[in-house]
């Protein structure tokens, strides 16, 4: 569904554009996704519990996932068994993630193994693994449910073929920093110091934020060195800008 409307120009609604004399072919979509309730409504699915329970078995994987999210948002704990049953049959990794996350919200003890599996099982795909880890960090802000995802996140940091995955793994670990052990923090710092010199901007940016959040002298030295040695003037300015502002606004959920 999303893919279809991404190609549509919603000039009046999407906050598009720009343009200093650019050609019309440069249509740029900046539209914001909707909530599960709005998305379901656009897909013609009602929001009553019965309709949502039925939608768990819809042929459209997107609708199945959205229905699970909606049931969790409505805190309908009685449908947790039905979500678990749907989850057990689900094969689409992202839909599995939505169902597992919803189950974790309604019945944490039941949903946690599924979420742990999703953040550690490479068969789910790296993006899903990362998304599962992020969801656990966010959903269980007081607990340590996401700790089981940490080893896999650390491994993803070494995935040099996917710098975006590395960047996001670093970003999630940085968000989970307060619950990491000393050895994990040391590893996070070491990787951040390595990545801060990366030519990939996303990875460099994640490393800068991680080092700013790290109050150790080694992190401070690495940041200063990175700022001094950065050859790209814009990137150098970016690093100094982030260093100056700090990352004090970044807190645990």
């Amino acid at each position: 569904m999303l893919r279809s409307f991404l190609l549509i120009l919603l000039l009046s609604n999407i906050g598009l554009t720009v343009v200093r004399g650019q050609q019309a072919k440069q249509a740029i979509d900046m539209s914001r996704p909707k909530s599960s309730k709005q998305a379901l409504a656009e897909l013609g699915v009602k929001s009553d519990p019965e309709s949502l329970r039925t939608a768990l078995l819809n042929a459209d994987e997107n609708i199945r996932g959205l229905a699970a999210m909606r049931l969790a948002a409505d805190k309908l704990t009685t449908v947790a068994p039905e979500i678990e049953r749907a989850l057990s049959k689900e094969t689409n990794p992202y839909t599995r993630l939505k169902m597992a996350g919803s189950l974790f919200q309604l019945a944490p003890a039941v949903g946690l193994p599924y979420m742990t599996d999703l953040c550690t099982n490479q068969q789910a795909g790296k993006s899903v693994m990362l998304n599962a880890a992020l969801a656990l960090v966010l959903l269980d802000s007081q607990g340590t449910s996401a700790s089981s995802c940490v080893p896999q996140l650390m491994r993803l940091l070494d995935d040099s073929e996917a710098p975006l995955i590395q960047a996001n793994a670093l970003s999630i670990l940085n968000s989970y920093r307060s619950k990491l052990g000393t050895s994990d923090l040391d590893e996070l710092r070491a990787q951040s110091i390595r990545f801060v010199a990366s030519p990939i901007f996303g990875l460099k940016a994640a490393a800068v934020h991680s080092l700013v959040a790290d109050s150790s002298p080694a992190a401070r030295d690495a940041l200063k060195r990175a700022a001094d040695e950065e050859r790209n003037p814009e990137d150098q300015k970016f690093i100094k800008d982030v260093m100056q502002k700090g990352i004090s606004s970044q807190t645990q959920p």
Partner: protein
Amino acid sequence: MLSYNIAPLFLEGGGFHSSIAVVNSIGRTEKIVMWVRRNDGFVLAQKDLVIEAHSQQRFSISDLIGLRGNRRIGGSVILFPTDEGGMTVAAQLSITYGTGQSTSFIDEEFVMPAWHDSPILRGVGSKTITYPLLAIASLSSNAQIVNVQCISDDQALNVSYPISLGPNKTVLVRACDRRDSEAIETNLLTNETNSKQRIVAISLKSQGTAGTFAAYGIGAYKRRNSSSLNMRPALIGIPFSDPAKAFSSNMVFTGVPVGALDSTERFKPSVTIANFGTKPTDVRIRYAPSSESAATKVLDVARATIKPSEVQLFDFDNLPASPAIGSIVVETNGTPGDVVSNLTSFADKTNSHLSIEGHDANAIENGGKHPWTIDHAPGSDAALILFNHGTTSEAFSVQVSGKDARWAKRYDVPSMQTLTVSLRQLIDKQIKDDRGAVLPASLTSGAVTWYASKRGIGKGRLYETSSSPIKKRSFSCGGVITMCNYGAGLYFGAGLTLDIGGSGQIGEAYGEQCQTEDGYTGNPCGQFDMGMTYNNFSATWTGCNHISGCGVGDTWNTNQAIFPTGLSAGADNLQFELHDLSNYQCYAYGWTTATVTSCPARSDLVSNTQIDPLVLGGGNPPIISAAGSLSIMHVGDTSNSTNFDGQAINESVSIVESTCPINPCVASTSPASPFIVGQDQSGYLYAPPIHNSFYDYHVMSSTSNLLADWGMTACATKCSQVYTCVGSQTTMGAYTLYYHFAQGTVNGQPGTIITVDKY
């Protein structure tokens, strides 16, 4: 009605020198007139004075009257304001006689006779070898008869007789002796070495209108071993006070030197007490050593009963807990004003002495104001001496001022202890005041003002000293220091609007430090602004149901902006009441409102995750310029004590700088489509509902290779993003969005990789 300040006696010439110090301790320039008046009422000199705020001026009488030669002259000095607005200057006339170690220093405070005074003045001298010299000065245009009643341990001096006081004249007579004579030569300056030592107390009662005369006396003390005919006697002042202005039967003498304070002087206090009443009175003399003394216990050093019309002398040759700059309290059970006392501390090695002005323990004045000067003379210092004669520890607020200088510090003085504050040390050591200010190193003179929180607990005086030339000047003018220009800066009208967890300034309870011209009458709040903050009041705030911050204000911290915190949604009607602690009748009250919205006061960036271009889709044609990020924003404090789920949040985004021919700095929210706290998000990533959090996508996609179209290899745009809660105009958080465009492969084709960072 003009108010007059008068020093009834100056002496100039023939070894005498008189000078006047005038101090203005308020925050405006004072314009006053000074008359130097001869005994016959003729005005020898008139000078218009302009005393700048927080400053002092000193004048030599000889300069004022242009006296040449060594001719001796006496008279009085009068000060009065140029208009009827009143004045609060304090003034003192200082008389010196002699030179070197044998110099006599007499400190004569100006007094302000008023219509509400009684027609009686009383004073007692220290031990003297002479008939005291008595000056009675008229402030009336009518003649009056003043009855003189003397009490002495010398029966020959127990006399009572009338004196005629002409209009605006001064009579200078030998007291307690019906014989009129050339008083100065035959009495004070006698070289009689075998003169009898005696104590003399004098009561003056005018048959005229109250408040129309003033008096001052001088006695001569026989110096020890003063066998030389050339040895001049030591002169000691006899101040007079109105018994109707006595509010207690106790007198306080602050900063009494006791014992061998240095190698050259050993001080022995001497107290004289006279009972003008009709009943015997019991007397207790208490000695309170200085706070620096090892022994700080208050000591009863004398007890006695004094019969009506009797004087007694108490010499303290060996007070314990000395040496010390202590204080002495004379307590009696007589009627206030009936018992009068005097204290002089004699230095037996140098034959010098120091008279300490006594003050009624419960005087209406709760503070003092004094001039101060330090110079380069050896040992030059000006020390403020404070004595807490109350029963509990007391905070004294001290302000030292001078040209372009204001210094204020609170000193805590324990009960019955004396504290000495050296202004020399404040300047030389650059000691910071309570707000971190220091006095300029070049400052050498100015005004010092102090006050205790209320009357009846604190006394003080300023002592100027130097060793060469010898100087011993004591200034002890009191003052009623109170509050004025008080109130609270409040948000009237719409009041204050806060978000939950947010804070804002609701106002500030404040007061200025003021002086009252006449503490016995008039408004309970002072009318002369000293231009300095007044802390001696309490502020009570009530009505805080949805904000923090109500309660009784800290006495010493009320002159500060108040920033309550929004606790829960709702509206409060707030009241405040402010009272001057030195005078409860001086007060203010007011009200305002505070409304706490249901909005959180802050947002925090939890995480910013880059979105894989693959997630944005292949399509036909495929997306080849894409990506962005998903920011998770937490609202409210980290304790999550308030539930903000469901709250609508808006954003505003604006461009800061860019190297790209594009402006991605566009808000994605609208009034109809805000961010909703606690709401899930469909779309590129799994985004479940998070308590007190919302999602903010920053995504771009295009089927064009943007950089290729622009003919660029890379560019960046920096945006400013601000979140506001719907229902509040308060900024919850401000961030930078950094759009980075780089060449890369997207969906298997050369394209533009867009990374969005947020911080």
